[in-house]
């Protein structure tokens, strides 16, 4: 399945597609959740919300 299909399905709240995308971008979210070398759990949650928002908002 290519990314376009994946994203389209994720937009429709398809669990498999969401999981795939989540796995793909987890490292990025973790990287951007580290403040001064310390992992910030609250920020990490915020980043997940950001990811969900991006999936919802991006136009295909």
């Amino acid at each position, binding site marked *: 399945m290519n*990314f*376009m*299909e994946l994203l389209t399905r994720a937009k429709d709240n398809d669990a498999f597609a969401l999981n795939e995308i989540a796995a793909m971008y987890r490292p990025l979210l973790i990287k951007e959740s580290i403040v001064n070398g310390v992992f910030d759990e609250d*920020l990490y949650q915020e*980043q997940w*919300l*950001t990811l969900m928002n991006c999936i919802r908002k*991006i136009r295909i």
Partner: protein
Amino acid sequence: MWKNNDNNEADESNILHRQFTVYLATAVRRTKIQYLRSKYKLQRYEIPLEIEDSYPLADFQAEPDIILSLPLLDQLENIKLQRALEQAKKRDLYIFLAKVLEGRSFVEIAAELGIEYNTATAAYYRMLNRLRKELGGEDE
């Protein structure tokens, strides 16, 4: 991640993938900045109380030399005033201080910064109103 099969659909998908990655990376970075900013804001309101409690300001007054060697904003003893000034825009603050401390005219200040006379006065009165508001503003 996916092989480019030289057909249009794969290309489009790859482009979309890249676009999404860039979009997400920007959004995520912005989230981080906003998160840190709101956290930092909260801390600013917490710290002054502790400082006030543990170091009475009277002690600092006993040694004026040390105070005078600090940057201008750190010399202030009034925490509220300091906070208000620090939160102001840099340019507004500059205009305000040039007017109040150095007693220069708006014409001079405006010429130096390359702005309109009205802009300088507006910035000055904006700062005044702001300080009145922040400090409780009894004196008009």
